[in-house]
């Protein structure tokens, strides 16, 4: 029961959905299932949120190092959750003013919108922006031509970097467009690297990945790979 049933479920639904590609009358099943997944994910939030709360409560009650930060996390979590779920400060939909709950939960001016725009957005985008710095440090540390592979990667990257600037292409402006040396113009070299070499490498990777996905999926559907089910 514990392992057999899930594997049977997996085989049946998986193969039915593969077949759906070829059987028009059941193609609409797929659309429903995608919606169901989102609903299950909401149920799963109970576990995720519960785990988050318990983890931090434990840190606080054990007075673990940095428990004060756990208090901050909990306050931020519960505060955001409350204003979001209760639609605090959300005006009703302008067409249905009598329906207090009809407004959009992210409506401009609401408390949840405030948290989103002034807490979440700056934190997320700044975190993302720190990548610019990490690129610089990785370039200094790791981009070293110490073998043929690394040298190829490096030379290609340098060429494309130059071509991605405004002045890069001007370096070879002295070569006329119609001369037989035109392929040596910076933008043409970049075009060749991007459109030819990048395409062929990416294609091979994609073909390989597609096969990897096919066989991993099959292993799951056939019950060959059961690691996601854990032990008994």
């Amino acid at each position, binding site marked *: 029961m514990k392992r057999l049933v899930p594997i049977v479920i997996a085989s049946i639904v998986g193969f039915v959905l593969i077949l759906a590609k070829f059987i028009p009358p059941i193609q609409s099943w797929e659309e429903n299932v995608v919606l169901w997944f989102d609903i299950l994910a909401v149920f799963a939030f109970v576990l995720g949120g519960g785990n988050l709360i318990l983890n931090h409560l434990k840190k606080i009650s054990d007075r673990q190092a940095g428990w004060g930060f756990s208090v901050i996390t909990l306050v931020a979590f519960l505060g955001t959750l409350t204003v979001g779920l209760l639609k605090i400060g959300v005006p009703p939909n302008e067409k249905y003013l009598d329906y207090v709950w009809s407004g959009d939960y992210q*409506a401009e001016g609401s408390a949840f919108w405030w948290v989103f725009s002034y807490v979440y957005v700056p934190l997320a985008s700044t975190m993302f922006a720190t990548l610019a710095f990490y690129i610089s440090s990785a370039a200094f540390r790791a981009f070293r031509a110490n073998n043929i592979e690394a040298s190829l*990667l490096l030379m290609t*990257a340098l060429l494309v970097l130059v071509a*991605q600037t405004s002045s890069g292409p001007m370096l070879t402006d002295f070569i006329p467009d119609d001369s037989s040396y035109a392929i040596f113009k910076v933008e043409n070299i970049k075009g060749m690297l991007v459109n030819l070499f990048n395409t062929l490498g990416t294609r*091979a990777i994609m*073909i390989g990945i597609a096969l990897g996905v096919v066989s991993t999926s099959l292993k799951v*559907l056939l019950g060959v790979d059961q690691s996601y089910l854990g032990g008994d």
Partner: protein
Amino acid sequence: MKQSTMVWIILTVIAGAYLTTRVVQYHAGAVYVAPKVMTDEESGRSVTTWSQVPDLEKDSPGVEFSFVRTLGIWVSAFFTLAVFSFLVGDNVIYKIAESIFVGASAAYAMVVGFWAAFMGIFVGRLAPQFSRNTFMPSLEPDVSPNWLMLLPLAMGIMFLWRLMPAGGWISRWPLAFFIAVFAGLRLVSHFEADFVVQIRSTLLPLIVFAADGSFNLKASLWNSTMVFGTLACLTYFFFSVEHTGVAGHISRVGIYLLMITFGVGFALTVMSRYSLLIGRMNFLLKEWLHFGGTV
């Protein structure tokens, strides 16, 4: 230690003084809003909403200074600088920002899931009448409940069963269901878009002539490189053959070509990463400190 504390105090004071002048002179971070009053003609009920207006309109009638949103801009600026401070080293300010971020973003994802998926799709379809009377008045009045929605409900309950003392294994059923569903879907879509179509796009003549019969060297070289290069890279991924002998040489060429691919990928990405930083700088300089006019 003492010296560095000293340096930090001095820097903070200078920064504080500078910010004060920015506020006094340029109203740094100030946000102005205009009201919009909506009235329901039948019930006479009216609601006022506020929306941000460009600074140029701050003297227009009805436009007000918004303390809450101005505070928001300053809070944003604080968090932006807090994250950047991690680059100098781990510190208390960053830890505070990180703690708030984890808590607020987890709650954010849950609220979105709750209103969009749970209420919007699940409740909206299972109990349309209730939804119409409360949070979704725009629903068509004669929609009948979609009983199919009981299925995800059942699966959700099975999934949460693991919180019960016994029979937690039943939660594997919905999990197996969804893993299988997406395995099936991805199998087909990857096979189609990434396998079949990629092969199709690589079917090319190795020798190319122009319509008038003349030999086109450039296109011939291009196509040949494309076909043989793809083959070489594919060889690298063969698992049945050890990378020795001929297969070894070809896969070596394959890995070289892959390295060129990665070089291109790296360089193309660099551009995006710097633009992210540009985006943040733009926020700090324009929206917060009001340099060079405002947005």
